[in-house]
């Protein structure tokens, strides 16, 4: 091994070790799993600190992979495992870790199998961290597939999905994508007679037949993770039936792997064969976007509204990535940071509201009037989500959209329309939850969040606000 210990490996190892410690953490006599919870939170916070440290170590505005670590994994075939990061992967990692902390807040009172949830969540976090620091095609594939097992376990054990066949189908299609990806990876590896770093993929020259198959395989496998037609059906059937904030959060991170795959795999100079694929993908993307936005507007289920919001934004980012513009990529990175945190917060508080509603047996119209702390946070997150100048979504989405409008005005208009629909859907929901005239709930009937969580969430709001002012405000000298 060329390097045996370094910071990128460490951020994969920390959640993994956290998982092991959580696994062996003793439960208290009253059955409380506070130890497991503390270990999990500690592992995530430790990783956030490490990620912030990595931000200090790299040149944030320099394009390309940095802090490259290479491990010679196998001699025959000669496979090196390469890790590396750029500002996009780091922003995503940081956002995911913060989203996990928010998710842990959402499940802190749910004692049922909490230890198992922490264990599988940390395993997922470790694998997804590995995925985002992968800088070669093999490690990319390994972590691409390795995320599926913890996801399957989390969905099955805690997702509370009534129809089990949905989970099986969901996983089977994802596995199909992973298997196709595996074959494409090995084909590329053999064709290039050796190791392939993700940075080199853009400049790769393939023969016609090979090009056709490999790009089709990569597109299908990455698309299998993103809720676009025809994959949207089983992804939405699983995600819209999840009734657990942490599980929803984790399952919604999965499409990110597909989107990120497009960032890494899409060549700088487009082979002729790919322009056909991209055109088809754009059409499928905007149709799905509009379709899901409309369903979100009609559907009364708050969970589905959040799901439709997430899907529309994911597709917008995907279409942005397909333009292969470096500046847009940076905007997407900054936008993603706020987007993931906002989605996590919305989901956690939406679940909190639903739980209070079902426990007290009350209607949720105007429920936020009875819990002012939640009301502040929920309103802030909804307003930030729809694109008000409260987070980095505002400016960066504006830039992404303007660029997409310049590329294709028709596509841009439909996209704008979809965004307006999902935004109005979220705003309508906020209005309903805060509608004081319909409020039939007394202040004491609904339990508000405690002071500590409120302060933490205010801090999260502060992070989002700062990201609006300057996306990389936390990096000294950026």
């Amino acid at each position, binding site marked *: 091994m060329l390097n045996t210990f370094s910071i990128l490996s460490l951020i994969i190892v920390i959640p993994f070790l956290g998982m092991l410690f959580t696994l062996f953490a003793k439960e208290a006599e009253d059955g409380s799993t506070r130890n497991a919870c503390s270990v999990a939170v500690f592992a995530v916070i430790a990783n956030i600190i490490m990620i912030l440290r990595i931000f200090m170590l790299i040149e944030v505005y320099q394009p390309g992979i940095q802090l490259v670590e290479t491990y010679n994994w196998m001699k025959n075939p000669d496979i090196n495992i390469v890790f590396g990061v750029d500002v996009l992967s780091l922003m995503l990692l940081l956002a995911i870790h913060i989203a996990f902390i928010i998710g842990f807040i959402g499940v802190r009172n749910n004692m049922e199998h909490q230890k198992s949830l922490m264990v599988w969540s940390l395993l997922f976090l470790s694998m997804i961290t590995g995925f985002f620091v992968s800088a070669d095609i093999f490690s990319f594939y390994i972590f691409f597939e390795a995320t599926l097992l913890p996801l399957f376990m989390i969905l099955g054990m805690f997702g509370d999905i009534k129809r089990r066949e949905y989970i099986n189908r969901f996983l089977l299609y994802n596995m199909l994508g992973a298997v196709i990806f595996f074959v494409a990876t*090995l084909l590329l590896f053999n064709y290039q007679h050796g190791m392939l770093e993700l940075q080199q993929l853009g400049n790769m020259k393939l023969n016609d037949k090979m090009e056709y198959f490999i790009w089709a395989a990569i597109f299908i496998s990455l698309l299998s993770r993103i809720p676009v037609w025809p994959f949207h059906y089983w992804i939405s059937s699983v995600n819209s039936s999840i009734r657990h904030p942490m599980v929803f959060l984790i399952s919604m991170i999965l499409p990110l792997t597909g989107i990120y795959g497009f960032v890494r795999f899409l060549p700088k100079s487009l082979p002729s064969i790919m322009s056909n694929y991209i055109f088809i993908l754009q059409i499928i993307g905007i149709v799905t976007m509009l379709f899901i936005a409309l369903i979100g507007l009609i559907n009364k289920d708050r969970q589905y509204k959040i799901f439709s919001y997430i899907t529309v934004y994911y597709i917008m980012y995907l279409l942005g990535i397909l333009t292969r513009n470096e500046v847009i990529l940076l905007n997407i990175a900054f936008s993603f940071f706020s987007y993931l945190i906002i989605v996590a917060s919305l989901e956690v508080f939406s679940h909190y509201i639903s739980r209070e509603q079902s426990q007290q047996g009350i209607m949720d119209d105007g429920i936020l009037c009875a819990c002012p702390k939640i009301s502040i946070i929920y309103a802030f997150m909804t307003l930030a989500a729809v694109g008000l100048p409260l987070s980095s979504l505002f400016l960066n989405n504006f830039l992404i959209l303007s660029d997409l409008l310049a590329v294709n005005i028709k596509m841009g208009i439909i996209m704008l329309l979809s965004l307006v629909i999902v935004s109005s859907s979220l705003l309508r929901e906020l209005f309903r939850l805060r509608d004081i005239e319909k409020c039939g709930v007394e202040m004491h009937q609904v339990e508000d969040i405690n002071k500590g969580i409120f302060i933490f969430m205010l801090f999260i709001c502060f992070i989002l606000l700062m990201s609006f002012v300057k996306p990389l405000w936390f990096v000294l000298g950026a």
Partner: protein
Amino acid sequence: MFVQMVAQSPEIFLLMGLPIMFLLNKYRKNKTSKTFYSVSKIMLLFSILSGIIFYNRSGYAEYVQNNTYTTLYKIFVQIFGLGIFFLSCKWFLNKNRSSLQYYAYGTGLIVSLMILISSVHFLVLSGAYFISSLLIYYLMRLSSEDYEYEMGNRRYFVFMFMFSLMILLSGLWFYHKIGSWEYAKIAAYYAKHAWNRADIMAFAGILLPLLYMLGIAPLHFNRIEQSGLSILPVGMINQILPVIGAYAVILNLLINVFSTASSIYVPFLRILSIVSLFWGAISATKEDNLRRLFGYCCLYSVGFIMLGLLPFNNNGITSSFVYLIAYLLTIFGVYSVFFAFKSNGEYVSSLQDISGIFSQKPYVSVLLTAFIVSFAGSPPMLGFLGKLQSVENMIREQDYWSIGLAMLALLLLLNAFFRVIRVMFFEIRTKNFDRTDRGIYFCLFLNMIFFLVGVLNPALFIEQFETLLQPIMR
């Protein structure tokens, strides 16, 4: 004579264990299953040690020859045998049954498989094959309460007798034609002469029995059926030891003796491998008996091992070897977990019996999941290394159809795996499980260490073993 005896000491040590066991049984008053296990263990350890020391010495070179290749597989048989004996001891202690016959037959089976692996003479091969098959039959007879099982045993006996006879007759044919039973002389003859129809029949008469022992489809019927009904220690032996022996002999024969007939056997083996992949994958999805379910997974794995081997080049040999190691460690791990699936003193084997087991036995359930992931060839488990190597080799050989079919079969097999995981983790527990023996945890822990070392540093597995495989490398 003494030098010859010393060179054959690995087999002799094991054979010495048999009279010791019978004497202990006759004269020792306080004997438990541990007594016979201890004898087997000590003899196996001596045997392994002497096998390593005399790895390239042969006592009777015209009948059996040792080299790094044969020693490697013989040591595999011994080490896995030792592991199986260790776990089986727990079973016999729990059941309070005499283990003399089990350990005697098991030790005998190890010896006969060792002779089978190092044989260079068709008479020795047919003898060792017959004895191995007969001992497997006797092992299977150790539990014969079930009528269906008894009928299966009889069927096995008929087939094993028929196949042993086939090997003998095929050997006789070569002797009649070439004037020798020795592999080298037969290989030299066919290097100069073409194959005629009768020769091919004789060749098939040797290959088919060995494929039966390997358990490839459609010759797998007995092993999987019986492993579902036999007692756990016997099922474990049956799924592991004959596979190692048969694989080592098939590879040796096809490369060193019958390589000139490759145009005949490669398409034949390709068909059998693909049939095994699909038969295993489809049958596993419908199976409710855990041991049979994993038996079908083994069938799938055997198909993959043979498919990876098919080009019979160095990469093929290495890749199928890596897959074999992954398979052996995985199935050993799976059976170790089966020893932990005990409720009210009974070892459960139905899928429904383990529903919700995660809530009571989280570590065991997680470990079984890890083995399942390895079976599926998913990263980061050891099975991934095997799949990676095999598929990479198929791509090099531009065998795209085989890759497509293998991946399709894998997706079918995943359904069966999802079902097992779903039952263990997502369903409500119906049984109360007994405390798991520490020895089983020890075995599982050791297995996971091998897994981790293999995954983190595959060079250790691949490169170190590649040098040992030199005698069959081209």
